[in-house]
């Protein structure tokens, strides 16, 4: 199980936790230790997830190119740009984003069918 490298993540998280604890004792402001503590907790959790997941041996179905992925990225970017340019861009971007997700799902299903 340790093949996943989980012990290193947990160990790193504990080291961050130690630093966060010292900081928490030393500083009156709650924000800095909270930030560092969150990162410590995150690392430990990541390690636990890696530990529980273990080593999966599964086959993957991967097309050589994935245009829907690019659509999702540009949909997200357009939506965010809408904050600066106006609601119209949010709507267009949102549509591109959803279209991309739909095509991504299709791509996934197609690849699975091809394999089975």
């Amino acid at each position, binding site marked *: 199980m340790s093949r996943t490298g989980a012990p290193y993540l947990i160990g790193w998280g504990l080291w961050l936790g130690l630093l966060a604890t010292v900081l928490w004792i030393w500083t009156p402001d709650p924000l800095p230790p909270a930030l560092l503590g969150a990162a410590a907790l*995150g690392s430990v959790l990541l390690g636990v997830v890696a530990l529980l997941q273990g080593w999966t041996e599964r086959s*993957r179905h991967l097309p050589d190119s994935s245009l829907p992925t690019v659509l999702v990225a540009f949909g997200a970017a357009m939506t965010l740009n809408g904050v600066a340019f106006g609601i119209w861009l949010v709507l267009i971007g949102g549509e591109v984003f959803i279209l991309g997700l739909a095509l991504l799902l299709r791509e996934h299903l197609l690849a699975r069918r*091809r394999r089975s």
Partner: protein
Amino acid sequence: MSTQTAVAAARAPRGLLAWVATTDHKRIALRIVGAALIFFVAGGLIALVMRSQLADPGAQLVGRDTYNQLFTMHGSTMIYLVVTPVALALGVYLVPLQVGAADIAGPRLTLFGHWLIVAGGLTMYSGFLTDHGAGKAGWTGYVPLSASQGTPGTGMDLWIIGVLLAALGSFVLGATVLATVLKFRAPGMTMLRLPVFSWTMVATCLMVVMIFPVLVVAMALLLAERHLGGVFDSAGGPITYIHLFWFYGHPVVYVMFFPFLGAVAEVVAVFSRKRFFGYRPLIVSLLIFAGGSMSVWAHHMFTTGQVTNQYFSLTSTALAIPAGIEYFDILGTMWGGKISLRTPMLFALGFLVQFLIGGLTGVMLGSPPLNYDVHGSYFIVAHFHYTLFAGSMFGLFAAIYYWFPKVTGVFLREGLGKLNFVLLFVGTNLTFFPMFILGYDGMVRRVATYPSSTGFQGLNIVSTIGAFIIASGIAVFLLNLVLSLRDRRPAGDDPWEGHTLEWATSSPPPRFNFHALPPIRSYAPLFDLRHGEQR
């Protein structure tokens, strides 16, 4: 063969589709590097304009408002769009190869990350086309200056959105590289047989995964502040933003450093014909280093009078210990070796020498009584350019000259490479060393101009000359790229007698990386294969 089997679609797409939407981690990585190179040239040209302005006191080459946009975009470009993405791209290309995997974990996510960064860059730069110009609150975007009153205009919004997108993209790239190390290693490739470069990517990506979400939050809050108001309005608002920003902003310095340190370590081992010396101490120190670097961020805030300076001074100064271990192990690798001074090795040595200057001045900056003086001055500018440009960029060039034969199958020219090195080495030190003195003498950073009465002009001229020498070095590099790709001097699969698995496959590697893997019994499996195992 690696544990997961990848099923390729029957038809291999060509043309535009394959260009924009490839799921091959190697091609995505090259795309990231290509985009970064374009942004690098843009950011570099901006730097030349700034250096030209500063060569002459009171110069009006560009106005103040324009100058503020330029230095903001220079810093933002180099950090968000160039060095961070390139550092991660090295991992995207090499980590699957070094761990003996057929593919990266989540290739679509990697592709997604790449396009987010590109979209972020375009968003940021599109600010130049708006009424008030591009973002102009520095790459740090401190509030209240970056709030709607401090910097009105769409350009500032576009800067924030661009940073947010690039941050999301970098986060995604880091996550896929980390997952690849954790879950896609070939049989026999235990964590303690990971090549040093892959370990530096582990440390890097751990930080990426922990810090970029905080930057995303900071940018989202900044956007909310500008459009809704009331987020950072309170007395504690500005310092809260600064904490969030530097909680990302300091570790990212190491994100932009570790991968190049790893590249230099590989180059040094190969060109010394030695197994890496002190592997385990290095790994332990890397993890301690990465963790420690997460807890030093408020040394950027000593002069605010609102942080516990002693804690952050302690942790910052203590980073000298893991950094010292890294130097010890790299020099230990060279000691007793058979050193060939090929271009990658020259750049690696340049990295070691110049990063040391950045590191030692960094220790000084970790001391509040010294920091109280030089913070916010050109001394800081000199310091971080010694780490980022003189350090990381030299590490990057070492990596480029070293892995170019693997990626393309052909060598870069050695003569032009050495010229490239000499020009960059001379240019870098001419540009950045005078800035230490300027800062000590009282020149504030981020100034569009300065009066001639200050006496700063002489050193500024030296610095400007240096900047143009750097530019000529970069031009030589671009020329080298073009000529080498045209002439195509074949390199074979393993021209340097490499130690790690990427050299066990063809150059360039096939779509799924390996046809067969050698046995993996140490962190230098190819060295074992060639010279027999240790002991």
